[in-house]
């Protein structure tokens, strides 16, 4: 493997970090936000028989987590290629 230049590796890492931070904000919002902190507020709305806060805490947050990981995988695969740091 040719030695990667420092700057490129640094830029790759920064892009990775900013993606992770964005996704973790969503992660925090659906679980700790909608499921716990905003629970009472959201419960005035309903989805079928579910109060919305309760739905986030027991269903919605889990679906979002799954989507987050696949989105992350997808974006990182592209990022790896863009910076030429993917595995052979």
């Amino acid at each position, binding site marked *: 493997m040719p030695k990667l230049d420092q700057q490129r590796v640094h830029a790759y890492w920064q892009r990775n970090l900013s993606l992770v931070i964005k996704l973790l904000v969503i992660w925090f919002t659906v*679980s700790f936000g909608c499921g716990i902190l905003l629970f009472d507020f959201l419960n005035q709305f309903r989805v079928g028989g579910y109060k919305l806060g309760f739905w986030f805490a027991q269903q919605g*947050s*889990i679906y979002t987590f799954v989507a987050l990981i696949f989105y992350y*995988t997808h974006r990182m695969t592209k990022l790896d290629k863009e910076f030429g740091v993917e595995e052979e």
Partner: protein
Amino acid sequence: MDLQSLTYLVVGASFALYIGIAIWSRADSTDEFYVAGGGIHPVANGMATAADWMSAASFISMAGLIAFMGYGGSVFLMGWTGGFVILAMLLAPYLRKYGKFTVPEFIGDRYYSNAARGVAVLCLVICSVTYVIGQMKGVGVAFSRFLEVDYDTGLLVGMVIVLFYAVLGGMKGITYTQIAQYCVLIMAYTVPAVFISLQLTGNPLPQLGLGSTISGSDTFLLDKLDQIVQDLGFREYTTDVRLNTVNMFAYTLSLMIGTAGLPHVIIRFFTVPKVRDARSSAGWALVFIAVLYTTAPAVAAMARLNLMQTVEPSPGNYLAYTERPQWFKNWEKTGLLAFEDKNGDQLIQYSADPAVNEMITIDNDIMVLANPEIARLPNWIIALVAAGGLAAALSTAAGLLLAIASAISHDLLKGMLVPEISESSELRASRIAMAVSIAVAGYLGLNPPDFAAGTVALAFGLAASSIFPALMMGIFSRRMNKQGAIAGMLAGIGVTLFYVFQHKGIMFVSSTAFLGDLPANWFLGIEPNAFGAVGALVNFATAALVSRVTAEPPPEVRELVEQIRIPAGAAVARDH
């Protein structure tokens, strides 16, 4: 065929399946399984990880706890799934890139110190043994019911079987066995849930059934449940906060970061062929876990509703004790369900008021197993649930015991104390470590600190406060040095253990608790099960502080950190 013989048959058949697959795949193609490249597809690895990870806590215990905690039980649902997001984004790909054998090995190399490795071994053993206690509780409940004996005897039988299973060893390492275990456990969980959802709401998908109306009425299931529990003086199901918001927050956080710090899960990501696969494997694992985790709230609410309506068929009319159903009698034999006729009227009064309540014991851990019986589902489904519960408990217990054994034999003995140890002595040491762990966990499991899922939550708290921060800082901070990491791990797990022990008793022996297990004594109202979040903060803070006033790590360690951050140049996956 009666229920008991049917249970033996189904459980026996599932065991035969696991052993059969193990033998077949071993004889056939050891190389293909272990060597990278020819490797395990991320979907298959995800499924195996899901089986490894979902234990008696998820299968047997969790829905039962949610049934009695209502909304408060959401901490388990969010905590035990949200952790995979952290794992996928913050740890798995980097640890895969590093590509070593155990978690302490990474910590030892990254912090260029055998002391750090030793501390990691200590932390790993403490959390894993606590975790096994939780499994033992679940196994004990399952066996006591199906052998129709008391809990202690059930636990003893469970210990012997787990030991046998773990010492067989290889079975656990083989991905296809775990895929079979996943299939058995997920079927066992979802089939009864579908039937019960159909019965109650007419909707076959439990995830939707929970939000539907009760068949033949306009009332939503959750509204009806809220109504019934409140009539008997319990708090409203859908809004019953666990103690307070701070506690819910801490509990969820503790479980999330604990998930990302548990050795037996992390190890799975060391073996996928590529760094990219480590990311998607975590995603697939969560898909397979989510199938159970989105079904669990429906199982919980429906089990609670069925239980309430069995005991109180119509408002104010309680079931007569002499007319109690068979499942009630069966569970009475285990001592996990008990009735006391306080007012002598032969009726089973169930109430939130302890002075009036006559259902004096309902061990929450029995709910999932009892659920199909309460709903009067056919016997084969009940037998299937037994097989699923055992698959969940055994696969996880075996995984944890192997993690403990490799930490002792590979890291402690071979890596640190006696590097010249022979292979056969290493193997013997790991078997002894397993046997001792089971004996300790089984003994402590006779009087577990909590229900199975609660005990497991303690283990997650301990992992959250010790291993996770050390791993994360090892990847994300080039400046973190050995002094910081060691001080952080010791402070984090120390604070958490101290807090847990003062409320739950030293080594969970409750008579030695010097502060009672009462909310009034809790720091910021945070219960011991949730304290790992605080422990993790202490860990991060201590590490940051200590590393600032001590020497920087050597340049080759900084080089190592740079290297693990990019996927390129990963070595082939190692044999496990």
